[in-house]
């Protein structure tokens, strides 16, 4: 793999367009990630259509820049405004904002940036080392294992999503059903088309992802006036004391390892990685009550985990075609648009492209560090962007981006419908990411179930094959565990 990575690195450095697109992606990622009300997933979903006319390499450079940088960008508003710009920054704000209020805003931002870089690099190393091994294992998978791992991915998402596991599962099933709309790939028979020619083409992932992650968030943001939020403007000292920095390396290492490993679990996402890392750090601390009062450990731990999750989440995405989180779900859409199907075959047929992804991520991490150091104070000013401009612009980008997929107004209507449904799902506390996951994984699940039944003739094979059985058992446990845990907890409280 090293020769391919070096080749890709050389190819990128002699291509100013590729470098330029990575720079643009990083800058956009930091800016959009920093804005309250614009999440990393939303940034990626809304800007994804811009990459359609690019080559796969250029598209990856651009999207990886946004992907990696927006995760760091979320910490800026978490620290200065006490509103996380991204879900992963929810934990960062617990100590980041108090630290800023103590007059250490600049130091908190620097800690977030350095921890993000450290975590990002460790996550990248995990990706480079682990992905080929997983891909090699997955090459031996047959249809039952693929079907089981897809089911496993969906149930892990249901388990990992905050809120009701049951409702997340329902969302996943809705996504799976949406994936069956249109012409069946094997027989060409139309399903759920209701006599409409446009429906026979199926429901494209991109408009649904743009609607659910983009437009739905716009609709949530315009429910009411957000009012003026207080932004801490006093960013004086940027470099923390060296003695303090020296003591934080073990924190960054622990956070990064936890984040990278959790991120590698299909559908787990950064929220879990960040929470586990922070909880672990607090448990190991000699004075856990200090957490939440504005201590550097409370910023370094979640930020290193958050960015390590980026590399970790790419492992299941690249090797199995299963999203590691909602951002990689959007990235899968990008790969499909460029005619690339993520999975173990990618490591056999397009190892050069895999190397491009690695190089793109590494460059994005390093460029984030560079621009973060140069522009910490400048990025903080972005927090005052007027909401009416931002929300209207994002809504327009959603429309144009959806149209750009197939030059079809039908996709725009699909996007608007997905956005409205995504908004209503938020209102009824039903997680939305499982719908997109189901839409992505649906074709894979159906194809492998049918192939299994064609080859083996019965359903028992899912249970008689050890890997398939193991994955199904873990999946069932993940579904039952939350209900069991709640019941045991209630019984304990009653006692």
């Amino acid at each position, binding site marked *: 793999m090293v020769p391919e990575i070096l080749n890709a690195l050389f190819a990128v450095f002699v291509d100013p367009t590729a470098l330029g697109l990575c720079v643009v992606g990083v800058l956009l990622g930091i800016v959009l990630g920093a804005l309250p009300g614009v999440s990393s997933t939303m940034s990626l979903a809304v800007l994804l259509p811009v990459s359609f006319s690019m080559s796969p390499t250029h598209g990856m450079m651009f999207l990886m820049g946004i992907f990696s940088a927006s995760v760091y960008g979320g910490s800026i508003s978490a620290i200065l405004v006490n509103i996380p710009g991204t879900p992963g920054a929810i934990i960062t704000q617990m100590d980041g904002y108090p630290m800023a209020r103590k007059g250490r805003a600049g130091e908190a931002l620097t800690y977030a940036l350095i921890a993000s870089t450290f975590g990002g690099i460790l996550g990248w190393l995990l990706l480079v080392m682990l992905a080929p091994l997983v891909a090699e294992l997955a090459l031996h998978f047959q249809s039952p294992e693929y079907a089981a791992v897809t089911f496993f991915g969906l149930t892990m998402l249901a388990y990992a999503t905050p809120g009701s596991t*049951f409702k997340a599962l329902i969302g996943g099933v*809705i996504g799976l059903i949406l994936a069956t709309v249109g012409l069946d790939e094997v027989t060409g028979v139309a*399903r*759920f088309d*209701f006599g409409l020619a446009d429906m026979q083409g199926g429901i494209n992932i991109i408009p649904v992802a743009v609607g659910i992650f983009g437009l739905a968030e716009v609709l949530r943001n315009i*429910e009411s006036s957000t009012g003026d939020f207080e932004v801490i403007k006093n960013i004086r000292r940027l470099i923390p004391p060296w003695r303090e920095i020296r003591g934080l390396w073990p924190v960054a290492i622990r956070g990064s390892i936890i984040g990278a490993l959790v991120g590698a679990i299909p559908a787990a996402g950064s929220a879990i990685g960040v929470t586990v890392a922070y909880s672990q750090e607090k448990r190991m601390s000699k004075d856990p009550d200090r957490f939440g009062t504005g201590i550097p450990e409370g910023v370094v731990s979640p930020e290193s985990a958050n960015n390590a999750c980026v590399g970790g989440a790419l492992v299941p995405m690249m090797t199995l075609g299963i999203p590691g989180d909602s951002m990689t779900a959007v990235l899968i859409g990008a790969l499909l648009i460029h005619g690339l199907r993520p999975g173990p075959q990618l490591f056999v047929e397009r190892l050069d492209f895999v190397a491009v992804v690695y190089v793109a991520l590494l460059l994005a991490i390093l460029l984030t560090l560079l621009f973060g150091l140069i522009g910490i104070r400048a990025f903080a000013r972005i927090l005052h962007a007027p*909401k*009416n401009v931002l929300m209207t612009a994002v809504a327009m980008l959603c429309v144009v981006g959806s*149209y750009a997929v197939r030059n079809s107004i039908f996709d725009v209507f699909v996007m608007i419908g997905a956005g409205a449904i995504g908004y209503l799902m938020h209102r009824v506390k039903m997680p939305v990411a499982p719908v997109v996951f189901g839409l992505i994984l649906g074709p894979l*699940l159906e194809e492998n179930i049918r192939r299994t039944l064609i080859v083996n003739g019965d359903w028992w094979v899912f249970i008689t094959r050890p890997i398939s059985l193991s994955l199904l058992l873990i999946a069932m446990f993940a579904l039952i565990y939350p209900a069991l845990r709640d019941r045991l907890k209630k019984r304990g409280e009653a006692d």
Partner: protein
Amino acid sequence: MDNYGERRHTALVDIGVGTVLLGACAIGAVSLRNNRVLFDFDYGSDPGPGLVPALLIAVLALCSAGLIALSLFRLWRLRAADNTGAYTGPSFKLMVFPAGMTLALLAYAQTLVEFGFLETTIIFTAVWCLLIGVQDNGKPTAGHLALYAAEAIAITGGIYLVFAKLIQVPLP
């Protein structure tokens, strides 16, 4: 901890959601049933294109029924418990702007191809920059109005330049 009113509201909403989903399952089931090719044709050893959709519809119907049943059970338990505390969560009034934007977007998409991108987008962005601006800043002054108009032109122009000129997407 949610109070009685909030838990009751959640249970009622979940019953509504479950009912809507059951209705969707019924529509899906009818669609499958009317499409005889899905099940009547002999696809050899392939179970056919009807199996997975039928299974998924069945699973969704079960889950929806389960959601309704659980919610009814929660409501029944709430009747026996201490029923203090009114619902203080978000009201339906909050849905006015989102509903308005959704309808506006539908109208915008409908007119996009007929009248062209620039004309329809300028109008849409101007209206929504104004509406969201009024929501946040109150009654607009002449200066605000000029600013909102400039914002609409900037957004439309920016998106047109990026998509039509830079990445060459053929906009209507």
